């Protein structure tokens, strides 16, 4: 009996496809998310919009809080660790979380290195803006990728940019010959074996979700039509006027993303979406997507 294998790590992400993973900060929010049809919840101390507003160092959530969330729901629980903070990851693994998000939403603990994720039994998801970044994270052992987007803004434009950039990168590889793949390896700064694999299959070797700025059912369906496998919603649910109804609407929009009539139906009467931020108005040092490499 083998545990912690690549197949079971990537496999759990396969099971989450076509689903919505929602940020929650306590057990009550976790139950609302589960009731609304979330496939998983992400435990964290503050949602990205509040981290952005309040500033300060954002860290792993309190273990008691994580355990309360784990106990409150039957769906898998993810939790965030700081980039490079392998001890936060060790702690989260002992708490029984099902996935760790090594996340730029928290304040990075290491500016040079991400966590060596091969050392863990629990799988990891990491953010990426482009193909090279995704393959570096997979090279470090990530079993799932998500776009970085720009968290806590309620503005989907960066997630769209990252997904399109990823797709362009994959399509480009498919047209290169062996010699060109090596120079592409140099340019992307990612493992050659993974680059060859993507060139051959035309897809990332792991599941790729959208994240960072998704606030409405249409945002979610847009990311699905761009080719994402599923959607993370951070501040978009619990910073909105009616979290339970909005959460369910986003879940339905992800399943029926190809049917605009259903997206229209679930989008009606949802009340206030979270207040959005224009990315151009964000000072460079407040752009979370620039964290990590």
């Amino acid at each position, binding site marked *: *009996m083998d545990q912690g294998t690549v197949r079971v790590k990537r496999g759990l992400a*396969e099971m989450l496809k076509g689903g919505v993973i929602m940020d929650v900060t306590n057990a009550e929010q976790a139950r609302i998310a589960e009731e609304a049809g979330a496939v998983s919840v992400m435990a964290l101390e503050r949602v990205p919009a509040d981290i952005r507003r309040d500033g300060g160092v954002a860290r792993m959530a309190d273990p008691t809080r994580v355990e309360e969330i784990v106990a409150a729901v039957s769906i898998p629980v993810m939790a965030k660790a700081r980039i490079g903070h392998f001890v936060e990851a060790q702690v989260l693994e002992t708490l029984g979380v099902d996935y760790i998000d090594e996340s730029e939403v928290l304040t990075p603990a290491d500016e040079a290195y991400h966590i060596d994720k091969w050392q863990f039994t629990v799988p990891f998801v990491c953010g990426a803006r482009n193909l090279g970044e995704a393959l570096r994270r997979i090279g470090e052992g990530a079993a799932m990728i998500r776009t970085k987007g720009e968290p806590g803004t309620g503005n989907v434009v960066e997630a769209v940019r990252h997904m399109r950039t990823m797709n362009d990168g994959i399509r480009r590889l498919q047209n290169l010959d062996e010699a060109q793949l090596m120079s592409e390896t140099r340019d992307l700064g990612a493992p050659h074996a993974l680059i060859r694999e993507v060139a051959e299959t035309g897809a990332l070797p792991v599941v790729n979700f959208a994240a960072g700025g998704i606030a409405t059912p249409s945002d979610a369906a847009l990311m699905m039509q761009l080719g994402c496998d599923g959607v993370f919603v951070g501040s978009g649910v619990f910073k909105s006027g009616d979290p339970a109804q909005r959460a369910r609407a986003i879940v339905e929009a992800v399943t029926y993303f190809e049917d605009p009539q259903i997206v229209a139906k679930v989008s009606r009467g949802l009340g206030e979406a979270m207040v959005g931020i224009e990315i151009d108005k964000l000072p460079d040092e407040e752009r979370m997507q620039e964290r990590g490499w």
Partner: protein
Amino acid sequence: MTFVSVGVLALQGDFREHAAALERLGAETTLVRTVADLMSIDALVIPGGESTTIGKLADWNGLVGPLRQRIGEGLPTMGTCAGMIFLAGATAERSDQVQLGVLDVVVRRNAFGRQVDSFEAEISVDGLSDPVHGVFIRAPWIEKIGDGVDVLAEVEGHPVLVRQGSIIATSFHPELTGDARLHTLLLDMVREG
């Protein structure tokens, strides 16, 4: 080979992996999201995923009744992991989950543990000469079985593969390994009528 059209319930989960496995065997597949999609199929697969999510989406979109009816009428059906839970009559731990109740078993969700306990193992299956490589992800097991349910495989004494008439249910994920034998079993049921 007769033409077989298999529906794969595509509300959430790894439905594309099932569809790909079936297409490699020469079947035509339909991704089932509406009642209309259910009407023209010869067999059905309910994939791995989150059983609570799949149950809610089926309920909200009026699929529970039609699914019960078609499977109850003998539509050959295979459920894997979440699919097994959705087919079952009850779960051991909670009562408010939407389930079809067409498979006369009680399942225990996440019975083998959380993700860190997920595992791969060789399991022997009644009727197959070589073992099946089972991928168990936060997997359920079957806690109680009704009359008319045959246990085809067990892990540590717990049923993980059962058959009841034209329904097959597994705790593990044959769609992730490239082993086509269980999908073949489903297609054989259609061909044998």
